[in-house]
């Protein structure tokens, strides 16, 4: 469960102005919104990478900004974060990058072949051939491959909560489908809570239990996909129509 309470954050200009929302345990939740509205900033407040000016975040009962260092540590160990631009460590090869996703204490007690097995499985889950890439450096990977290694690193630690910042942007349709399947599987089989930021509105509406839309620093909408599609709000409608048109274009292109 993730609960955002009245999150405010300003840089030079206000970015978030009072965002409150709740993602239930085991839920798949999509967050939409135009570029630059603070979706990534909101995700980062969940694990203290961005400290809100006002407000608090609670993850599985732990209050992040009132619990001090201990709370931050607890939350970071149970949350996996998929960065928008992968954020792989470029001095480490793919294997070491993925292993970094296993919490430090666990990694130290894990035999090396056990860690290797987990890294291998995580890479296969994101449709990568481990044999070919384990030894490679991030600079030797394509953008889409980096992104998927980033996902593997986020899931290898078996987190209870996953934050996905545009995991499918820049992926081809086959890999997009693979990542969507993975998100679904993680929440259905392992009851992982997923908060997914995406520009693929049609995809988000299809796989998620609930969706929200962030616009100009506040939540414009929060509800089920059906409610989203039927929303009378013109801004939401514009988003739905655009998404439908784009989906139709994609269908045509794939035929």
């Amino acid at each position, binding site marked *: 469960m993730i609960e955002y309470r009245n999150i405010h954050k300003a840089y030079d200009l206000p970015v978030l102005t009072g965002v409150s929302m709740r993602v239930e345990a085991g839920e798949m939740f999509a967050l939409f919104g135009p570029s630059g509205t603070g979706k990534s900033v909101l995700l980062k407040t969940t*694990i*203290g990478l961005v400290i809100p000016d006002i407000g608090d975040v609670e993850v599985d009962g732990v209050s992040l900004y009132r619990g001090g260092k201990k709370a931050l540590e607890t939350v*970071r160990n149970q949350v996996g974060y998929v*960065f928008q631009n992968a954020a792989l*460590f*470029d001095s480490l090869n793919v294997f070491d990058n993925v292993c970094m996703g296993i919490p*430090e204490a666990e990694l130290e007690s894990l035999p090396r072949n056990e860690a290797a097995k987990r890294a291998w499985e995580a890479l296969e889950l994101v449709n990568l051939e481990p044999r070919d890439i384990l030894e490679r450096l991030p600079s030797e990977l394509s953008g889409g491959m980096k992104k998927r290694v980033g996902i593997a690193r986020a899931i290898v*630690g078996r987190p209870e909560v996953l934050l996905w910042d545009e995991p499918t942007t820049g992926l081809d349709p086959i890999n997009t489908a693979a990542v969507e399947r993975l998100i679904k599987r993680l929440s259905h089989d392992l009851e992982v809570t997923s908060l997914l930021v995406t520009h693929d509105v049609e995809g988000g509406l299809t796989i998620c239990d609930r969706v929200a839309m962030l616009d100009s620093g506040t939540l414009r909408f929060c509800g089920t996909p059906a409610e989203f599609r039927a929303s009378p709000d013109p801004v939401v409608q514009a988003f739905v129509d655009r998404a439908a048109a784009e989906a139709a274009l994609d269908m045509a292109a794939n035929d």
Partner: protein
Amino acid sequence: MKRQSPGALPLPAPIVNWFAGVGRASTVTLEHAGGLGLLAWQILQAIVGLRVSLRSVLNQMYIMGIQSLPIVLVTGSLAGIVTSQQGGYQMTSAMPAYVLGSLVVETVVLEMGPVLTALVLVGRIGARITAELGTMVVSEQIDAFESLGRDPVAILAAPRVIAGVLVLPLLVGIADFIGIVAGMGAAYLTAGLGVDSFLYGAQLFWHSWDLLYSLTKAVVFGLAIPLISVHMGLKTKGGAEGVGITTTQAVMFMTLTILILDAMFPPLMLN
């Protein structure tokens, strides 16, 4: 018409601007001082908590030490040669020739060895650290470390600072030695001063703490360079341009710090 009291007179713009500038500069200086202090404290905690990997320290020592050796040897010998030639040129016939030995040794050990080595490392190591960590900030790699529950200070900052403190005294020792040898050769070639007279002059004015003084400087510089460069790197904002800007600022900041610290040494240690 009522006369304005002098206190109400508007100050001329240049004066106001000057005060504003001083204010800004002091704020920035205080911010950096605070940031450096905090970083040093966090590094100390990481060391005491045994959270620093020995392998990373050794790796950084290799980069800072072994890879810097060639340039340190070159600058060290040039320092000795230049001092020797300059000293020889300034000597008058009234002075005994062996004074040159003392001049070269003292100048190299007290000043040229530590300061030139430190300045070389500002360019070779300091700039590299700032650019490296700055790039990691703007590509969210630092965020990624934190998101995975890892401490960037223990992983990145501490090994660099420990390596700096350990390696710089070694490099300065080497620079001192090679500078003296080169200066001795130059004194022989240009002023015809034999090795015996050179060494006689050198030991005549040698204080036992001179080497300690040189190495203390090295430890202080070896702490300052990685500490400042890590601090500046982690404060990087913006993209590639931001990395460029902070790297330049860091080099200026480190160079000034070395020179200021060097100027503070004689009053603190030589009396």
